[in-house]
């Protein structure tokens, strides 16, 4: 049995370049990402396995993380501090961000939503270096905050070059991310369910915990993941607003490559730990959270 259909000339040419077209579209980016992202990651993995001054592979660089020097786990304490800062920052962002996102997504009239959301997250698009810098002018001993406190008769406080300063800067940096992610989730909140709950006699607290939160749990998880990853690996805020006692994991990495530490194998090992931690969080997010948030950037 033969089917004899005159082939459409366009379709014919489309078939000839069947493999060529997707190749031409997708190869350049693939090449770039493999060359300058994946292969470099393999390079630091290999470098992390070579202890400084040696040529054979070992896990020495990874064990260096638990070095115990002068009565202190000098590196582990930094890792722990980074985790702590990330947790505190995420907690505050959630606490401050949720009511704002709720107000933007649910309470205000629809025509105002986009413009006000844009206004709120606009600082996100300005340089994080400059935003941290702006906080220095506020927080430093002779800065705006202390001038104000003195004016109203209070004694000045000093939070710059301390953990408090770093946390203030981090919350400021990552709050818009949290609001953005929660907004995307709250926008789809089914308001009829809230009304139904109220009609059936639930008070606002019950409605919130039993109706609102479960509906936006995927957004909460995604926002938490995003903010904790970013603040965990933040370099700028600890560097500018913190002191020697509030250095985090990113500072240790920088020190091994560009600073006094000068141990690239060890720096690579910590970077691998960082990448691994991020991968775990992303894997959890993909499994339990809202994937759209990741793909929306």
């Amino acid at each position, binding site marked *: 049995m033969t089917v004899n259909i005159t082939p459409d000339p366009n379709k014919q040419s489309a078939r000839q370049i069947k493999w060529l077209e997707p190749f031409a579209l997708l190869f350049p980016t693939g090449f770039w990402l493999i060359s300058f992202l994946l292969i470099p990651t393999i390079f630091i993995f290999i470098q992390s396995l070579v202890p400084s001054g040696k040529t054979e592979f070992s896990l020495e660089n990874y064990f260096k993380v638990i070095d115990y020097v002068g009565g202190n786990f000098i590196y582990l304490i930094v890792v722990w501090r980074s985790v702590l800062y990330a947790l505190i920052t995420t907690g505050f962002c959630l606490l401050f961000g949720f009511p704002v996102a709720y107000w933007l997504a649910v309470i205000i009239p629809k025509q105002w939503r986009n413009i006000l959301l844009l206004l*709120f997250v606009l600082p996100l698009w300005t340089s994080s270096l*400059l935003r941290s810098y702006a906080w220095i002018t506020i927080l430093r001993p002779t800065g705006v905050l202390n001038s104000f406190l003195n004016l109203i008769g209070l004694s000045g406080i000093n939070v710059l070059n301390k953990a408090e300063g770093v946390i203030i800067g981090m919350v400021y940096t990552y709050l818009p991310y949290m609001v953005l992610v929660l907004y995307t989730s709250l926008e789809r909140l089914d308001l009829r369910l809230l009304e139904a709950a109220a009609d059936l006699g639930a008070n606002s607290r019950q409605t919130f915990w039993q109706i609102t939160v479960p509906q936006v749990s995927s957004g909460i998880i995604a926002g938490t993941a995003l903010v904790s990853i970013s603040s965990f690996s933040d370099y700028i805020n600890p560097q500018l607003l913190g002191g020697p006692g509030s250095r985090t994991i990113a500072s240790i990495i920088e020190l091994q490559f560009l600073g006094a530490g000068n141990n690239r194998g060890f720096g690579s090992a910590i970077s691998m730990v960082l990448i691994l931690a991020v991968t775990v969080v992303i894997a959890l997010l993909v499994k339990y959270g809202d994937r759209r948030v990741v793909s929306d950037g």
Partner: protein
Amino acid sequence: MASQIKVPPIKRWQTWYTVIAFFYMYLPIAVLTIFSFNKSPSPSQWTGFTWEWYSKFLQNPILRASLQNSLSVSLVAVSVSAVLGTLTAVGLARYYFPGKSLYRGATYLPLIVPDIAIAVATLVFFVAIKLPLSLGTIMIAHIVFCLAYVTVVVSSRLASIDPKLEEAALDLGATPLQAFLRVLLPQLLPGIVSGCLLAFILSMDDFVIAYFTAGVGSTTLPIAIFSSLRNGGVTPELNALSVLLIIASASIAAIAEIVRSWGHHQ
């Protein structure tokens, strides 16, 4: 029983809470702006209005050279990313192939992997292949994340486009190239423009990756700002520069957002 939804916004505690949150978001920027016009170089007291600091940093040769470096890095990175990112978004929307989700995942990676890890990996790689660090190496590293950004924004634009228009053009005798250039591309343009604008801001503002991949004499603006912060701390000149950069970034981001939503409402 009155539903809680119908309480007017002004009477809700969230409204006042949000007002405070807005205040928090804009306070540092406002303070910076005010003190950039302060006559006294000391940031603790106001002694009068001046434009002096704005003209002063424009005369600063180091800052001007680094601004030029930043602009050339960003323009090259964004131009390359615009082409590659658009091609990738179209390819991802159009074809199914084994390993597609892996490929898509890889394009998102630069947005998720921390800056510092990308910076370190790129540096180690460049050193290993003995590529001397320069403006070129910063461009290579910036293309990685700009590419990801353009791809994501154009992909989301593509998802809202009717593929039948391009099919109709093909049926009416257009070659695939004609259909792409004259039917698909104009529809994608808002996505491409807004993706490029956002990538441009990210590239101009990037400090960490540039810091690791810059060579001698390839100081970008954020690197210059960081080192002058380390050496001299807060100066009114730096305040003036920061205000200009913040205004520039915010305006470009706002334009990008307007272009994008204009595209969606078309």
